């Protein structure tokens, strides 16, 4: 079988994208949600070509702790001393998502498709429950998630890495 049989890197999980549900008890708080998806990158600035690898090398694995730290940094940087402003928050959400994406990209998780999801909600005392469920290969795929809470808002940022076989 020739090599080009395997043409076309396959994201087996086109339907795998993490399904996040955010339930807010009624009370009028707003929740803004933004998800950013990157294309799998073999090396920085290079699209992933097809390989025979179906497992990432260890140094390229999606490492939760590192990503967590990055997310945390971004959240602290962006959200410290911020209060919830319905005008500003959509942009903020997007900005954070992009920032996280960029940060995580720098980690050089090769052949990982990244999905960054940021949810910012107003804190007015309502209960919020958020959960994610993924249909993926638990061997290769992983996610990192951080929560930032201050008086007026809460922010949940999650980065999912799906290995691009």
């Amino acid at each position, binding site marked *: 079988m*020739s090599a080009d049989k395997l043409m*076309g890197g396959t994201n087996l*999980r086109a339907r795998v994208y993490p399904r996040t549900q955010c339930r807010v008890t009624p009370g009028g708080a707003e929740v803004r949600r933004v998800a950013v998806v990157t294309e799998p990158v073999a090396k920085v600035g290079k699209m992933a070509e097809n390989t025979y690898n179906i497992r990432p090398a260890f140094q390229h694995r999606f490492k939760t702790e590192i990503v967590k730290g990055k997310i945390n940094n971004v959240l602290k940087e962006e959200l410290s001393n911020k209060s919830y402003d319905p005008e500003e928050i959509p942009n903020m959400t997007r900005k954070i998502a992009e920032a996280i994406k960029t940060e995580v990209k720098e980690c050089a998780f090769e052949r990982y498709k990244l999905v960054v999801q940021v949810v910012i909600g107003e804190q007015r005392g309502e209960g919020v429950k958020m*959960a*994610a469920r993924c249909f993926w*290969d638990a061997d290769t795929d992983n996610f990192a998630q951080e929560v930032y809470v201050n008086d007026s808002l809460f922010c949940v940022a999650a980065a999912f890495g799906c290995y691009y076989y």
Partner: protein
Amino acid sequence: MRSSKGKTKDDTWKSEELLKHIKAAQGDHTDDNDKKSREKKRHKDEASTGSSDSREHRHRERERDKERERERDKDRVRNKGKERDGDRHKEREHEKVPKKVKSEERDKEKKQEKEREKHKNRDRDKEKDREGELDCSADQRARNKDKERNSNTERPTNRGHESERHRDKDKERDKKKERDKLQEKAKEKDEIGDQRSKHRQRKDKVSNCASENLDLPKDDKNEEKERKHRERKDKEGRSTENSEESKEKKRRSSEVKDEDHDRRYKERKEHGPRDGHREKRPKERKEPGQEGRVEETEKKRRERKDKESKEDEKKHRYKDIKVGALELTDREQGHREKKGREKKEDRERKHKVKKGKEEKERQGDYNEEQSGKKKKERRSVQEVPNERRPKGSTVEQVACQEKPTESLSEESTSGLQSTWRSSWIGLNDDDALVEGEEIAMDSQSTIESSNYEDDFEDYEDDFEDDECEDEEVEQEKEEMPARQRAEIEEIKKAISAENEQIRATQTRSNRKTYEEEPKRDFEISQTSGPSRGTFIDFVAAKQREISSKVASKQKKRSVELLRLIDLDFSVTFSMLDLPPLNEYDVYIKNFGRTNTKQAFVQCNEDNVDRESQTDELDTVEKWTQHPGEGSLVCGGVNVSDASSSVATNVDSRRLTNFLKSACQVIAVLLEEDQAEYQASQNIQSKTASLSVSDGCSQLNTNLPFLHGRKVLCLRFSQVQRQTLLSVHSLPKEPGVAQLASNYIICVWNIWEPSAPQKVLVCESEVQCCCFGPGNAISVFAGTVDGSVIAWDLREHSIIHYSLQIGGQEWILRNPTFSTDGVLAAVNHSCAVKAVDPVSSAYFDNHGAGLSLLASQEGSSGLSFQLASLDESGLLNLWVVVELQKADLAGSLTDLGLIPGGKIKLIHSSSINVNSFFPRNLMQLGPPQTLSIRFLPSDPNHFFIGTDIGLVSHGTRHGLQTAPKLYKPQMNSVRPVQVTCIDFCHFGKTMFLVGCSDGTIRLHSVATDHPILQWNESTQGRPIQTVLWALTRPGMFFVLDESSHIYVWDLLQNDSKPVAEESLQLDRITTIAILGDPEKPSASSGLMLAKQSGAIEIQYLKKQWSEPHLNELETLHYILQKTI
């Protein structure tokens, strides 16, 4: 046109085979070559047989028009049919041979040559070259044919083996052979027919024309018209037909160029027909007319796609649209192949009707015939051209002349494509097998589809013909032209209608293809036939194509990868769980301050009604006594006093202490008052009986229970100098019956002489007694029977026996603890001669314990050692332990303890004093030990008086220190009892020893011999007691047995006493010294116990009591001088 359009039978079944093969190959890609080839062979066989059979079948069907619908069923019973067909064939052949012969003979050799050229894939070029030359050299041509046959009929030979399995086929073959044999004459004709059947329809038509020309000259014209019409049509809408045709040519050329590919190609083709037969044909045959339209539309779409495919042919496989289309084309292929075959057959049947229809049937058997009779055929082939050439007809020549021009033009137009295609095929051959096959198939399919397209058109024509035929099976040929014209018209209409339809169906069909896509996925990837430019949206198609291509790629990849990868639903990650704030939190959040918490909230919960007393309270003052000793324990006055309320605040303990001490003082004062009163009243008030004293007082021993008891011992407390113990012996006449057998110890306070403080009773004779070292709250005594007895003076009177004696109640205290019979193992077994507390230096240095309060406080820590010495020389050391808690029920373990008692003795150690004596002394038997004194400055050292005139020096622990013995000045060992030992209270290194022989020795601790010894001071009367004065260091008192008291003052006179008193009236039994060395100015005196039981206090004169200046130094000086 037709000639090029037409397709050989070989080709058709090649394509079928190809399809089959592809399917098989797709079933298992990695098949072995052997297996493949085997399969291919089989396929070939089956395909050829099947096709031929089916063809034959169809013959019958046409004869039985209505059975056409049920062809599938008949396919199953093909075998049976074959035989019948075979029979029929025979018959037909027999019937039609003559006609054929005629028609065939009419065919021109030249035309046949052309046909062969076109038909024969490999040999065509050669034959073309030879065309002119080979006219005469029939052998060569025959050889060429043989080659061709060999190449084409590899399958038939193989099938030979297969056919053995299938008897039907064998039979058929046999029959055919027979037939062939019979028809040897007609071989030429057959051969021609066979070859022609392989050739394109055009050729057929040409042959038709030829035959028609022969039979019916009009047909020729019709044919011409029709051809022209088609050309027109082609030019109008289907310019791409050229490409189809050209493709076929290309294919041929490629076959010529690439034999390998050709072979594969054929093999592949062989698969096709059977599948087509079985799968698709039946369905589609049901509605031929509709199918026709569909096919038309499909055709056009295919053509369009073909154009696209030319743009990007290498990616055929992944074009879903095409895949869908291919599916259709597949079906159509099968369908068309059959139909084409049918058409051919029909056509040929027509021809046969005209010429002899068996030709067509024999086409199916052609290979077999060839395989069976190669040699014969060769011969016949050689013959045929020879025969035919001369018989060329002009009409056919015209047709042939036309054909080349057309074909040439077509070839020229499609020249580029053909070359490209061939090269492309070559490339693909170099590529992976599968791809190559697929692609080849693609190309083949396009070709086929194009061919079928043509076939279809023909078929439509033929369909009408069929109908006509069905109606008038063997009708006159004169009717044909008219009918054909009508058909042509119809075809025109149909085509135009179809063109219209294409627009409408285009989108729909596309959709359809998408729907069909999944079914087909990777089984077949093909592209379809030539393209037509009219209704094609290239951009959209391209996008679709690209997207579908990508999708299919990804899908394929994913299918492959998914086998290796496990996807699973991970657990649900809880990303955020922010509990809703409760009301309080919300309140604080909104209104509170940061980092503060409201701890308490005012609400009305605790706002409750309570009753309260508002009326004035009635108060009555009561008093109560606890413990209630009298009948009146409580009482009250109605007067409320402020002072009484104040008194309640007094610290009861302090009050108690105060009261105790105050009571004593008051008691003393009262006593003194009383004494004064008595003295003033009573003449009995004694004057000083002693010369050294200036006054005297008496303790009231005139008590009923003390009456008649001799005082055995007097002992002052070391700490509380006013506290005195007096031991009373058994009375001579029992005064109090209850106490008759009891020895009594009275605790006196000399300032309260009227009555003893405490009365202690003991059953056995008390030999000695003492107070505890720190205070006067405990009394210890040693008895004659060897027990040591302890009293706790603090005990409450409740636990003791109280006795009403003489109108007064006395508490008679039994011993708190007695070792009597309890500690038998360690207890003394003979009379205890002395008990002495082992006092630490602290107690000795302690200031006069006159402070009652201080002594009270000191009483708390009651724990010290007690030494008891018996006659046998056993010195027991006891630890006096005060229990924390009294147990009124008595103790199970401490059997010597009185119930409720708190002091007990624990045996600490035993020292055998005799071990201190030298051996030579022990020879006479162990000496009796009589008294013991501890060195006041160091309680480790003790001094024991013996009955041999020696004082032994021992230590409780540690090494023995010299001197071991303190001896008299001369003849050391005598039977002389050392009656008493007394240490000087000043300096504490000197002690006096009184002996029973009347000698008094003054010893220093450091030397064994006495400093001074007075032998005759008492005139030999035994010394009973020697006592140092407490206030003056140089003064001591001596009592002898004859009741003489000698007062010594060493400062005045160190050789004889300074004073001597004798009380003979009431003999003095024992004396004790009252006084306090710390307070010389305080009163000091001599306690004199009289034989009558009276106890007197003789207060010493100032002269004797007050110390002189530097008396101690003077004493030392004197003593040193004497030494």
